[in-house]
């Protein structure tokens, strides 16, 4: 069953955070347009075309913002950035094509098929944009946060070795926890970005929970990385 909950327009804007504010007011979907029910087999051609115009416009808007963000980010690895851009640009072309096609359709049944393919053929929000964010977060942890935590822990261990009087049981325990949490984060981010980016719209169509485990792993890795950083800061404060 299809739903056309145009709260999606607002959710899409939220998804991209403050960058959404950069979208010109003229590009925003009018609030009144968001109350349109999902088209079905009984909908008229004009109703389907109206719903299709809104759905594609929302996605084109959020993809435009997302692509710009990916182009300027330093968080994604080069390989993952290339994969993400390929997906988002593919989605953009698809949405633009459907936008034009639905507007030109002359039969309601054809328009309804095209309308439904906006979702099932692309999954712009729940696959394209979601996997992009997961990959960016995972790469940020794996390529920056974790190596910095490992370096900091090594330096702290060297300080303790040079001056054992500073290595109190409490600080030693914090360092051990810092190292353990960092190792956990390494384990959980290992292959995470690649796994998220491998998910396709077809995979989501077959299993709507296909990215749930990746999101959970990311949350756990992030919690580990934050805890390790907190340990490091506590040790540093005691040494200063």
């Amino acid at each position, binding site marked *: 069953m299809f739903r056309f909950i145009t709260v*999606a327009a607002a959710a899409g804007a939220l998804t991209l955070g403050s960058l959404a504010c950069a979208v010109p007011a003229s590009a925003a979907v009018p609030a009144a347009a968001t109350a349109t029910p999902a088209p079905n087999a009984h909908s008229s051609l004009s109703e389907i075309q109206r719903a299709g115009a809104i*759905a594609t416009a929302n996605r084109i808007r959020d993809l435009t913002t997302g692509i710009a963000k990916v182009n300027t980010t330093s968080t994604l690895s080069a390989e993952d950035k290339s994969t993400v851009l390929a997906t988002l640009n593919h989605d953009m072309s698809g949405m633009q094509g459907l936008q034009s096609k639905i507007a030109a359709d002359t039969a309601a049944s054809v328009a309804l098929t095209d309308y439904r393919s906006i979702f099932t053929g692309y999954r712009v929000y729940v696959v394209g944009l979601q996997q992009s964010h997961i990959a960016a977060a995972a790469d940020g942890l794996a390529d920056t946060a974790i190596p910095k935590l490992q*370096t900091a822990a090594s330096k*702290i261990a*060297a*300080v303790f070795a040079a*001056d054992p009087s500073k290595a109190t049981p409490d600080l030693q325990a914090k360092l051990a926890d810092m190292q353990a949490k960092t190792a956990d984060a390494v384990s959980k981010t290992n292959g995470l970005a690649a796994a998220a980016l491998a998910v396709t719209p077809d995979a989501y169509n077959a299993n709507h929970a296909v990215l749930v485990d990746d999101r959970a792993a*990311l949350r756990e890795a992030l919690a580990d990385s934050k805890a390790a950083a907190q340990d490091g800061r506590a040790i540093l404060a005691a040494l200063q």
Partner: protein
Amino acid sequence: MSIRTRAAVVVPVLALTAALALTGCGRLGAHGPSGSDGSSGATSASSAPATSDPATLDGISQDLGAAGTANSEADSNAQAGDKAAATGDEP
């Protein structure tokens, strides 16, 4: 010694003292900054970094700061991913 002469001597001494204090070079056992891998730079094994070494502690602080920034960015991306997953418009 006149006031002017005394001032001419005292001011450079104060400046030198301040410089030594800021760099840590005046401390007993002070040495150069650590390498990014935690090594003690050009110092010998017998002059391993002391906990009071400002360069070592500053290096740790910078590493932790960079990790914290990366954690924050990852958190923002994770939240954005959650919101994308919850748009609710995907049948």
